């Protein structure tokens, strides 16, 4: 009964075709959606830039520019993530599609938490490489973030190793998160991805109970 009601409510909300700035119980609001996709773009972009720029030769035009941009974006991402966390706390969380099982929900939550944690850990470890000798991190020449922890022997090497392995873990989780979202959309045909897209898609949702729910 509950499920039928919530399905009816979500259909009603969608049929209005309006997505507000704040989250509702049915879907993410515009700001959360914007922040999600911005961070997604930045995380994938930063991984690609990071891998690419560390392989550049000394005389490459991007040898200096690549790391400068990478560091600047890293600091800005920190600010974006702060806003994102605050916004998440201030907003209601959209309800899960009722056809999604509770184990899946718990795993998804775990992955989401890890994604947040890893992004912060990436920013901190990257910052510790660049500031190991007390130099600040410049952000597009506009402002700079001073060093805090310095003077630990080989700090830049340890921070560098951490940065690399966390990057691999983060990008793997991004892949898992993406595959899961696509699976919900195309295989389960539920509203999980739509909630974060802020749009209705042409895919018709199946109104039957998936296996996990029946068990």
């Amino acid at each position: 009964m509950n499920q039928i009601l919530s399905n009816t409510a979500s259909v009603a909300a969608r049929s209005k075709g309006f997505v507000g700035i704040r989250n509702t119980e049915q879907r993410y609001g515009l700001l959360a959606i914007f922040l999600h996709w911005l961070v997604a773009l930045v995380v994938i972009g930063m991984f690609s830039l990071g891998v690419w720029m560390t392989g550049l030769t000394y005389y490459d035009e991007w040898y200096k520019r690549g790391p400068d941009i990478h560091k600047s974006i890293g600091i800005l991402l920190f600010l974006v993530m702060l806003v994102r966390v605050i916004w998440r706390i201030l907003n209601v969380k959209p309800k899960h599609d009722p056809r999604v099982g509770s184990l899946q929900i718990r795993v998804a939550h775990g992955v989401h938490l890890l994604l947040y944690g890893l992004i912060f850990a990436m920013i901190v470890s990257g910052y510790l490489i660049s500031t190991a000798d007390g130099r600040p991190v410049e952000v597009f020449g506009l402002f700079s973030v001073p060093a805090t922890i310095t003077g630990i022997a080989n700090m830049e090497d340890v921070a560098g190793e951490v940065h690399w392995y966390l990057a691999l873990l983060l990008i793997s989780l991004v892949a898992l998160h993406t595959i899961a979202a696509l699976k919900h959309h195309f295989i389960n045909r539920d509203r999980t991805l739509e909630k974060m897209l802020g749009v209705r898609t042409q895919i018709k949702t199946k109104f039957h109970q998936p296996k996990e729910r029946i068990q």
Partner: protein
Amino acid sequence: MMINKMTVVALATTFLLSTQALAAKYVIDTKEAHAFIQFRIQHLGYSWLTGRFNTFSGSFEYDEKNPANASVAVEIDTASVDYNHAERDKHLRGDDFLDVEKYPTAKFVSTSFKEKGDGTAVLEGNLTLHGVTKPVTIDVEHVGHGEDPWGGYRRGFEGRTRIALADFDINYNLGPKSKELELILSVEGIRQ
């Protein structure tokens, strides 16, 4: 007869002891940083960059009566490379350059020492760096020696040489003007 024999033995012993005392062993004073292993390399051909290795140890033997017998051995912790820039040091420790995980130590062991008589000398030896051992020739200046104010006896040298990075299998391209680097070894030893 007896006395003569004793005298000979005593004289011989004295002689042996004295030569040993003259060919004194000096430990390089890294503890209080009166020794530096520096290097400089050109940046793009426009300027000189100076770096150093912060951790090393070594000793030398030197006998004023017989300088040709002088010898020196130094071992360097390659991970202690310090170019005064953390990101660059990280790069230098990586496998583009020193590969310190694979080659944690570099060393120099001398093979010959020839004084020119004007306070300078030529020191030859084998340098092991990045897993490659190559003979190098170091121009040495004998800076000075004598008692220190704290009861010790010190002697110091400065050596300079140029090495080609490619000779030691370091092939990262830093540009045509940066294929060689200059090594500057400033050592002060405390006589043991």
